[in-house]
């Protein structure tokens, strides 16, 4: 069983980073479409199997330092 914990809404960020409001987060949220364990397993398999590369992917291939 996986244990989860709720974020503490009042976590400090030196007052500098603006937290998005509950309404803003609700507006951005894209709900899950795969909900059953079978659908989740199928999605995981589709995402994480079969994609191969002949080269090793390194950070400099997608993000400048």
């Amino acid at each position, binding site marked *: 069983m996986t244990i989860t*914990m709720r*974020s503490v809404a009042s976590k400090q960020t030196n007052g500098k980073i*603006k937290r*998005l409001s509950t309404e803003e987060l609700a507006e951005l*949220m894209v709900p899950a479409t795969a909900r059953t364990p079978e659908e989740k397993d199928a999605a995981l398999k589709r995402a994480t199997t079969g*994609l191969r*590369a*002949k080269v*090793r992917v390194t950070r400099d*291939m997608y993000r400048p330092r």
Partner: protein
Amino acid sequence: MRPTGERRPVPRGVFAIEDQQLLLPDPIALDTSFVVEALLTTQPLHPACSAFLKRIFDSGVAVVTSDLLAIELAESAFAIALKERWGGRWRGHRTDGRSRRPATWRLNDTVTRYEALLSPVNHLPIPVRRVTADARVLMADYGIASYDAVHAASAIAAGAEAIVTLDTGFALLPANQLMMYTDRSRLTSCRPKRPH
């Protein structure tokens, strides 16, 4: 065997994704480096990252990403195809039509898999424009690189307490801003970088 009295390392908000006791905050943020490793079976940390992804799915926590992630993922797919064809000279062949076709095919395949990856979770994609000013604050305060700052600011703005990443650059942020979930081989290099 550990000598008696030896101190255990201070975590400083950096934890290993291989640790089965690791708590998953809700929401949790993902960085591109983790997603690349989870998607590509040929990457060295694919087993650990895909296993952690399964833990995220099973737990039901929401996932935060910056919109930048999808762009970086597309860029990595494009770069793979070019590098496979041209090796070290790949950067000079972006506009070559013969190279772009397989690159585009790989890009589309990768994006489809990324969409599959997100389908079991409630997803919070954070637009870059919502965190531009916050990213600047993180850069100014901690010296974190710009693209890392966008991912970190997105996580913090959405209320994520941890970001899953294989990028040691995030260790420049203090632990009270954002915890780092990374693979265990990076723990010893990340923890000393954390500011007090």
